[in-house]
């Protein structure tokens, strides 16, 4: 059958054509091609992916115009204009590994910043080392990243490890004198939720042995309806309700939980609650503890750079930056700082090797205070983390965070060479808390 041979032949021809045409779109020497991967569709797009993409857009524009304040006054990266190549993070890990290869091998990007999903980070990490392109994970928080990839060269994470969210959450509860005799958790039934609860529970048990765990609920992610879980927790009467819900799920839980008295007479603590700060209004109880996975968004330290970025972002989008925005900006600034430290002459790109050589141990100023690349052999950022209490002033219709408490990275992040689970179990050896 001739047609079969012909069709298979044309499939090959098609493949070859694709290969050739893509060669033409190879890197333009005059630009720094930066791959950006973040959720543009699906449920993580609204709360995380799109704010992060917008943050990148706003900051890259300002960098290319040379309008960023010191120490980032050089245009673009080392005087070279940044050309962003944005890709949707949706589609699963297989798709993302494929897309990462496409970015590097076909789009010929000079560096990649991206990944919100921990699964994507874990799947992409070996490919990063294989393809030898500087890659910065800006948001995913899994502790397994550098526990499994012990000798990274090209891979960096400028956002903190998620373990600090939950260690700091537990410390905040105890340090602010909340009643914590019994605790309950409602976390999404996937790796993030399971790990968050495990870290929080372990820290509570380590800091205050004898704490009772009275309810552990793991509803499906994006479930939206938490009636039964709220009842089950209410029946168990805990002193503390912990949740690492994020985005729409988190807002729905606060709304339904408040209406149903879940937080009446007990403390709620939401590790990512800050993203709902301007939206809760009277739907969240005063005293609810909110975190932002670091010193981000409304919990940003009051530096010149952070004020500048907040104002710029607000002017361009009409919105306040939330933590995914800040973390994306932080990643871009970190990459810029490393590239410029690499010693290439201004107006030219540093080699990839020089860039990744300059990154470890780097301390740079971000929109959220100072970041030190000091863990995992200089590949993992160490940063403070802040928690605060929700306060809503009905008359002024203004929400704010009170009783802020900041924990130094050294206090809540395990040192190199010990897994976070072991570190918590061992009673936080080497933690430097003030």
């Amino acid at each position, binding site marked *: 059958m001739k047609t079969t041979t012909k069709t298979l032949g044309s499939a090959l021809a098609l493949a070859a054509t694709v290969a050739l045409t893509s060669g033409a779109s190879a890197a333009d020497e005059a630009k720094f091609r930066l791959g950006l991967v973040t959720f543009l*569709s*699906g*449920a*993580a*797009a*609204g*709360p995380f*992916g*799109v704010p992060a993409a917008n943050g990148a857009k706003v900051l890259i524009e300002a960098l290319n115009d040379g309008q960023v304040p010191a120490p980032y006054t050089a245009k673009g990266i080392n005087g070279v204009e940044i050309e962003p190549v944005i890709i949707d993070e949706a589609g699963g890990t297989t798709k993302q590994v494929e897309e990462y290869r496409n970015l590097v091998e076909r789009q010929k990007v000079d560096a990649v910043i991206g990944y919100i999903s921990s699964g994507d980070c874990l799947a992409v990490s070996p490919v990063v080392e294989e393809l030898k392109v500087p890659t910065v994970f800006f948001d995913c928080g899994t502790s397994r990243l550098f526990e499994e990839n012990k000798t990274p060269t090209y891979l960096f994470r400028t956002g903190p490890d998620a373990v600090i969210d939950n260690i700091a959450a537990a410390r905040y509860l105890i340090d602010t004198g909340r009643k914590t005799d019994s605790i309950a958790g409602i976390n999404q*039934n996937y790796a993030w939720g399971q790990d968050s609860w495990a870290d929080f529970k372990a820290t509570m048990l380590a800091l205050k042995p004898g704490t009772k765990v009275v*309810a*552990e*609920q*793991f*509803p*499906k992610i*994006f*479930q*939206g*309806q938490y*009636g*039964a*879980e709220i*009842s*089950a927790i*209410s*029946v168990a009467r805990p002193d503390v309700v912990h949740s690492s819900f994020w*985005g*729409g*799920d*988190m*807002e*729905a839980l606060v*709304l*339904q939980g408040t*209406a*149903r*008295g879940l937080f*009446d007479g007990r403390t709620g603590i939401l590790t990512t609650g800050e993203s*709902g700060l301007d*939206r809760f*209004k*009277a*739907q969240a109880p005063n005293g609810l503890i909110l975190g932002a996975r670091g010193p981000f968004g409304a919990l940003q330290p009051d530096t010149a750079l952070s004020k500048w970025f907040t104002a710029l972002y607000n002017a361009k989008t009409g919105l306040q930056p939330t933590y995914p925005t800040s973390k994306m900006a932080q990643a871009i600034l970190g990459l810029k700082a490393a590239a410029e430290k690499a010693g290439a002459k201004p107006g030219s790109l540093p080699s990839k090797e020089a860039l990744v050589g300059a990154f470890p141990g780097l301390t740079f100023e971000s929109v959220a205070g100072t970041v030190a690349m000091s863990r995992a052999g200089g590949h993992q950022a160490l940063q403070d983390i802040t928690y605060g209490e929700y306060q809503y002033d009905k008359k002024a219709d203004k929400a704010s965070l009170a009783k802020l408490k900041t924990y130094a990275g050294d206090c809540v992040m395990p040192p190199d060479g010990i897994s976070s689970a072991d570190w918590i179990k061992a009673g936080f050896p080497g933690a430097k808390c003030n």
Partner: protein
Amino acid sequence: MTTAIAIGMDGLIYASWLFLVAAGLTVIYGVMRILNMAHGSFYAIGASAGAALVTWYFANVDGNAYWSFLLLPAAAVVAGVILGLAVEQGLLRFLYRQNEILMVIVTYALLLILEDLTKLVFGVDPYFAYQPYGLLGRCEIAGLIFSNYDLMLVAVSATIASGAWFILNRTVTGKLLRAVVHDREIAMAMGVNVSAMFAATFVVGATLGALAGALTAPAISVSPGIGVEVIILAFAVVVVGGLGSIEGAIVGSLMVGLSRAAAVHLAPEIELFVIYGVMALVLAVRPQGLFGRAAARKI
């Protein structure tokens, strides 16, 4: 005891929500034999439209807050009718001769398209139209606090269920519908306007889906992607109950709702499997679902 009451209440509330979501799906399947994957999109669009309208109302109109209870269904009806008509007239009616499975794929394609269109129309920022949720206050049952809005949804759901049952079983329209279900060609030969019937059914089904979304909107944060999550739930409910049967959708929602509530209270670790477990179990015992009729083939 508290736990038993809580399971009953939680199960009932969840079941009413499930029924709201599944009703449109089962109506459309019952009459048109289309298992509509895009039903999730109707839900999402209803939710977005309702939330957007309510948000706009509270931001711009200084009226009575209770009007929002009318705005939600109004948004749903407008969205459902426009969408239902567009999809049925613009696409489905050309494909009625295709088999059931192919129609599943057609509606899957629709789902993909509508997901992105919803994003383009309503944006990706979540809508948080919480105002109506708190308006009715809360009540205490056996030491547990419940939101009156949720209880109202139980009533709405029960009304729709009995309304649908009444229309199908006690009215002329219902009889005609059942004639169409029984044998499309004979009904057509007897002068029933089948294509009008199909269009009307699809619009009603789409509106029910949108209504489910709009009524849920105040209790959640409406963001892209919520539609995909409800489809499989709705599928599970109608498959358990028997595809195309209103009674089946009622019993299916109650079974799924109560077993899930029981799992959450008694054995949270198996909660994730409960729905599929119930579905697989029912199908294993009764392949056509609890209220479904097995199609006998004549030779």
